[in-house]
């Protein structure tokens, strides 16, 4: 643990503010496209969720549930697609990726 003794109080405060600012900067908004019943539940064909920078698919899926709680029942059987391909839960999502929720109900 580095000693901070003797540091001016203002410097410590600045450091805290910087850390807070960095955390804010480290968060990004990801747009998730919705289709079918999921779009009807959300009342929209897309939802923007705020997550940490360069999140993995599982993090975005969880954030979607927090953003639209009504979607939570469909999420356990749903998957995310990134750039038109199913994503693994640990797959990183990068800026500019097209992200979609693929929640299918068998039938017909």
């Amino acid at each position, binding site marked *: 643990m580095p000693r901070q003794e003797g540091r001016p109080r203002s410097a410590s405060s600045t450091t805290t503010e910087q850390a807070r600012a960095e955390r804010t900067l480290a968060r990004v908004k990801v747009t998730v496209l919705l*289709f*079918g019943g999921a779009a009807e539940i959300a009342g929209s064909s897309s939802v923007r969720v705020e997550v940490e920078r360069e999140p993995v698919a599982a993090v975005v899926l969880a954030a979607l549930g927090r953003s639209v709680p009504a979607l939570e029942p469909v999420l356990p059987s749903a998957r995310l697609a990134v750039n*038109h391909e199913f994503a693994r839960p640990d797959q990183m999502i990068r800026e500019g990726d097209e992200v*979609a929720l*693929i929640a*299918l109900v*068998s039938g*017909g």
Partner: protein
Amino acid sequence: MSITVRIVDGPIGTDALASVEAASDGGCGARATFEGIVRRLEQGRAIRAIAYELYRPMTDHELIRLAQGAAVEFGLERIAVVHSAGRVPVGACSFRMVVEAPRRAAALDAMTHFIDRMKREVPIWKRIEWAE
């Protein structure tokens, strides 16, 4: 091995895969054809039509991927599928599939396998237009 995947707007005509069937050279002993028809009752209620929503181009990619997998797994010589996008009224065809294999069992099994996986994995959603 021949793989054909098509998406058409609205109902599928009976000649949608005519060119695929005409191309057969007689090397296979089994050709199975399946048509999915929009049925009048859904959960006991009358409907007027189904509107199919697709997430393209992912829908196309996934149909091709499944068709390739089925062709390899069941030893198919030919697999062709066509699916509707948009509104299809009751009684009309919304899905057609043709497979050819050296023998009957492989052709029939491949068809069931493909359709089951399509319903689970291919991004196609149905919106029902109720009659009332």
